[in-house]
Every structure is written in structure tokens, then in C-alpha cells.
């Protein structure tokens, strides 16, 4: 096993990307993700890769579209307002089935907002974000190690489904330092019989999202939808203290890691609280939550926003006689484990007694 290294969250993403064979990175400055382009600018040239700081977010997402369309592994990263600017490009990539990895180390909004952690981009990430009926796979790490591991996984998923993959972190996950262990990337082969590599000696290829003849776009959209449905086999989640739990707290990303301490505190005080942490936000682990809801009736979503993942939770377990409660903390401050314990205790008292 590799030695543990003390690494910053953003750098772990960049390291994971290079290990997974990413050789093209296109970015633009925005806090709190600048360590990613900075790391890439220092290290991509060591592996004969290309680093370009583009003139805008639109340029960088479309450089990603271009590089990926040749079959190369490529990545861009930004933070919330920058990700908003990239949406048209992401929509084109989905429509043309061009893979690519997009990192959103999100900050707070709306507008220029602030640079502190937030989960306000959940809807944008999981509902497509741009125009048209499409989805991207969304991975939500909660530690620096996961930043590293999930970035490697993101490249495989992007190639496997010919679809953009979004890594949704936030300022906390990007800026903090933790020990991680590097591991060797096991190369998986994904035949790219669609890549733009020059048509000499073979039939020409076409990557496009424009379909004008009668019914053509209908078929295209149904085909894409089928693909999005098939992504369900990639669902990942983590549970903690589920044995005998009476209340399940559901949370992702940075707030989930704070809740790990909170749930431990609750258990120490004899409260039967469990934690369910979705790792894939799209596809959302609805089936697993539904299964749990046959034996546990009380759920509580905790998010660093005013209620977004809450809707997916309600769609998963909101039927029957289940109770779904919510605690949200909009950006501007990060809740401590104690504060969250206080909120959970209130709900626990109300629902369980």
C-alpha cells in the first residue's frame, strides 16, 4: 500500500485525473478551485499533457468538447458561476454524446454570492443544468481521498456512457488538507469508434446534436433517456449506524462528513439515528432508500441549501406513511456537529419521542 500523503482537496482531484490518464486540462481562474488549474499547469507537462488557461469558461468547456471528441481524456474545472457559463457546452456534449469530466468545486450563490461552501448547485448538477432534456452523472465526494478516487472513476464512467460526468464538491472539500493514499489506476479499455481522428481508410464520422428531420430528434432523445436509465447500475452510497435506526439522516458531500460526528454523538446518547450518504447524486439511490423505508419510517434531509436533495428524497420515500423532515443551512456559515445534533434531536423528539 502506498504511503499516506498530506494533500489539499483540489490537488487530489488533479492528481486523480492525471493518474486516470487525463492529458488535457482547460480552465479559468475562479475561487475556490484555483489549485486544480495551478496543479495541472505544474504537472501536466511532466506526462506530455496539455494545460491551457482559456480566455473564458465558455472557451474552456468547448476546448474540452473538442479534445474529448478526438477520444482523449480531458477535464475542466470551475466553481458555481463558472459552471453556469459552461452549461451550453455541457448540453452540446450530452446531445452529441461526447464524454468529459467537469469539476464543480461549488461556492455560494446566487449571483457572485461568496466563496464559502454551499450545496446550492444540486439542482443544476442533477437536472441537467443547461437547455434540453439531458442528464450528467454526478459524483459527490466527502473526503480528500474520495476526491482522488472518484475523479479516477469519473473518467471511466464518462467513457463508458459517452457522457459528461460532473464531480460536485464545494469550497470545504477543495480547500481542506487530509492524508490520502494514492493507488495505481487500472486501465479499462473503452473502444472509441466515434472519435474524430481523420477519416483516412475508414468511413467518415459525425458528432452532432442537431436533428431536423421528422421524428429524428424524438428517437435521439428516447435513446439518450434509455442511456440515462441504464446509469442506475452505477449507483453508489454509504450507510452508517443503520442497525435498528429509527431516524435516517440523508446528506451528501461536506455536510455528510460533519454529520458522521453528529450521528456518533446521537448514538452515544442512545438515540437510534442512522446516516445515509448518496455518492452518486444522479442517478440518485432511490431504490435503496425505498427499500430502507419499508422498515424505517422517519427520514431527515440535511443540506447546505434551502432544500434541493430533499425533493429527490421525497420522491424516493415520500409515499406511504413516511415522514420526511429537513434541516437546511444556506451558505455563509458551516454548521458544527453540535448544532446539527441539536436539530436532529428536535426532529427525533417530535417523531420518535
Amino acid at each position, binding site marked *: 500500500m502506498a504511503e499516506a500523503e498530506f494533500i489539499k482537496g483540489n490537488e487530489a482531484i488533479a492528481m486523480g485525473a492525471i493518474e486516470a490518464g487525463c492529458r488535457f486540462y482547460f*480552465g*479559468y*481562474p*475562479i*475561487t475556490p478551485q*484555483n489549485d486544480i*488549474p*495551478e496543479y495541472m*499547469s*505544474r504537472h*501536466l*507537462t*511532466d506526462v506530455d499533457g496539455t*494545460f491551457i*488557461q482559456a*480566455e*473564458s*469558461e465558455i472557451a474552456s468547456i468547448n476546448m474540452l468538447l473538442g479534445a474529448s471528441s478526438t477520444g482523449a481524456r480531458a477535464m475542466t474545472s470551475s466553481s458555481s*458561476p463558472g459552471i453556469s*457559463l459552461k452549461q451550453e457546452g455541457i448540453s452540446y456534449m450530452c446531445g452529441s454524446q461526447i464524454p468529459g469530466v467537469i469539476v464543480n468545486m461549488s461556492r455560494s450563490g446566487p*449571483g*457572485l454570492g461568496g466563496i464559502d461552501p454551499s450545496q446550492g448547485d444540486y439542482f443544476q448538477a442533477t437536472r441537467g443544468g443547461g437547455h434540453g432534456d439531458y442528464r450528467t452523472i454526478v459524483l459527490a465526494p466527502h473526503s480528500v481521498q474520495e476526491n482522488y478516487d472518484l475523479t479516477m472513476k469519473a473518467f471511466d464512467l464518462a467513457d463508458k456512457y459517452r457522457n459528461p460526468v460532473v464531480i460536485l464538491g464545494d469550497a470545504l472539500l477543495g480547500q481542506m488538507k487530509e492524508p490520502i493514499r494514492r493507488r495505481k489506476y487500472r486501465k479499462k479499455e473503452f473502444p472509441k469508434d466515434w472519435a474524430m481522428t481523420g477519416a483516412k481508410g475508414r468511413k467518415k464520422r459525425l458528432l452532432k446534436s442537431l436533428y431536423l428531420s421528422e421524428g429524428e430528434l424524438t428517437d435521439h432523445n428516447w435513446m439518450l433517456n434509455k442511456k440515462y436509465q441504464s446509469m442506475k447500475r452505477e449507483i453508489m452510497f454509504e450507510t452508517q449506524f443503520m442497525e435498528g435506526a429509527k431516524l435516517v439522516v440523508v446528506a451528501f458531500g461536506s455536510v455528510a462528513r460533519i454529520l458522521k460526528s453528529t450521528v456518533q454523538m446521537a448514538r452515544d446518547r442512545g438515540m437510534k439515528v442512522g446516516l445515509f450518504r448518496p455518492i452518486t447524486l444522479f442517478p440518485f439511490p432511490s431504490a435503496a432508500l425505498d427499500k430502507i423505508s419499508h422498515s424505517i419510517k422517519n427520514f431527515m434531509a440535511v443540506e447546505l441549501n434551502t432544500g434541493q436533495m430533499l425533493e429527490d428524497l421525497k420522491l424516493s420515500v415520500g409515499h406511504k406513511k413516511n415522514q420526511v423532515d429537513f434541516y437546511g443551512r444556506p451558505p455563509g456559515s458551516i454548521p458544527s456537529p453540535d448544532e446539527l445534533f441539536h436539530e436532529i434531536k428536535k426532529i427525533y423528539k417530535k417523531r420518535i419521542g
Partner: protein
Amino acid sequence: MQKTFDIPRELMTGEDLAQPGMLSCQGCGASLAMKLALKGLGERTVIAVPACCWTIIIGVYPYSTLKVPVVHVLFETAAVSASGIRAGLDMRGEEDVVVMAWAGDGGTFDIGIQSLSGVAERNDDILYVCYDNEAYMNTGIQRSGATPMGAWTTTTPSGAVKQEKKKDIEKIMLAHEIPYVATASVAYPDDMIKKFKKARTIKGTKFIHLLSPCPPGWRIDPAMSIKITRMATQAKVFPIYEVENGKYKINVYPEKKIPLKEYFKTQGRFRQMSEDLVKAAQERADRSWESLIRMDGEA
């Protein structure tokens, strides 16, 4: 011995519209630049600020260090947002209010150039100011289209210096044939205030390019920031001139010949610059200066 500059008293009259409490670094050119700009423009001014150091310098909401209204706008839209404000003010009959877009070099040379070009093509009646500190300083010294060749930034590949040339933004703006294009520097405050006073009286798109020192980004002692900025003009890498309706006028003639190398030596960001790059930069500066003198002579 460098001559110190007296700012004529008549230029510094009236209340300071830029108040103390700015959240800038020591030796920041951008905060001084705003103070001088508002001396020239007066209180009938509305400012549009995109993402740049000034979104921070202004202070934490609801406080503002400026005594004129400020609208925070998108990174890529300083110019067009200012046009919108202009249209709104005109409709209200407040035509004497000057609308100033106040953007950094990233927001001007890179992401904002599309909207700036659109505004210039329509000759919208705004004043566009780029305070140029030659990199994305607010986010931590990333290279921009305004970073000079030979400067180190945190995103110049392999930790080396920038190999590409700085865009000639004046030429780009002049190609739009707008009524007023000028350069100015916080090291020449009298010239700068006069230019803002003049810009206020001109109808159409005005573009002022300010060289604005950034001690953390340039790797200089904050106490030296004005001196070094003045050297940029003395070494002819940042000539101070204006072009009014196509007529060139050089406003500051360097008193003595300073080789560009001396200017580079004053800053940590140029430490890794090779002799070849220094030579290339000197040749480029000489060429631009000669062409500027020719244009000035034709006027």
C-alpha cells in the same frame, strides 16, 4: 534622483468620493486609481464592477467605500451592463450622469472582450476603464491576456514564465474608431485626473487603460509600487498617450532612457526571464514607441 510629482491643487479639490476602509493590499494601485478617477468624474457617476479585485476592495455589504452608486455585474459583462445602465439613465432624463465600467485585465482582455467590442461598435456612451495589474490577482496570480511575456504566474505551465505576448488592447480599441482611447498610470496622477475630466465631456465610448501595480502579484515591496509603475513608462513599456478622434498625443515623454531590463529587475515575477525574452521584449517596446512617435508626429 527621481523627480517627485506635485499634483496641482486645483485637481484635488472637492470631497473624496473614495473613502478610507478599502480592503486592498498594501501598495495596491487599483484603490488609488479609483480615488483619482472619481476626482476627475465627480459624484454624478454610476459604476459597474464585474468580478475583479474591486468587488472585494469596495468593502463588505452593506458598507461601501465609495460615495457613488456601484452595481456588481457578471465577469464577462462590464461593458454591456454599463450600456444598459446608460439606456436606463437616458430614459429617466439623467443624461449628465457618467456611467463607468471598471474592470480588471482578465475581465477586459479575456472574458469581457466580446461585450466590450459590442459596446465600442455601437459607440455606446460609456466610459470603460481597465485597471490592469497584468494577471488575475484576485484569484491568486493566474496568467491573463494582459500578462507580459516573461512574467511568472501560478498557471504558466511547468512553473516557468509566460511565453506569449501581451495583447495590444489600445490597438484593438482603436480599430473600433471610438472617440477616445487613452492610457494612464497611477504614477502620473495629474495626467490621470485630467483624462477622466476630459472623458466626462466626450460622447460615445471612451476607453482608458490604467497600469495598476499589484505588490503580491508583481513580487515587489509595496513601498516601491509607484516608483516601479513610473519606471514602466520611463522604460517605454507602458507609454502614456491619448487618441482623440484618431489624433495621437503622447502625454509623458520619458526623461531618461531606462533599458527594459532595469524595469524587469525590480520585480520578482520577471526573475526567471531569459536574456532572449528580455531582448524580444525590448525590441517590441522600441518598435511600439517608434510607431507611437510617428503617429504623434502626424497629428
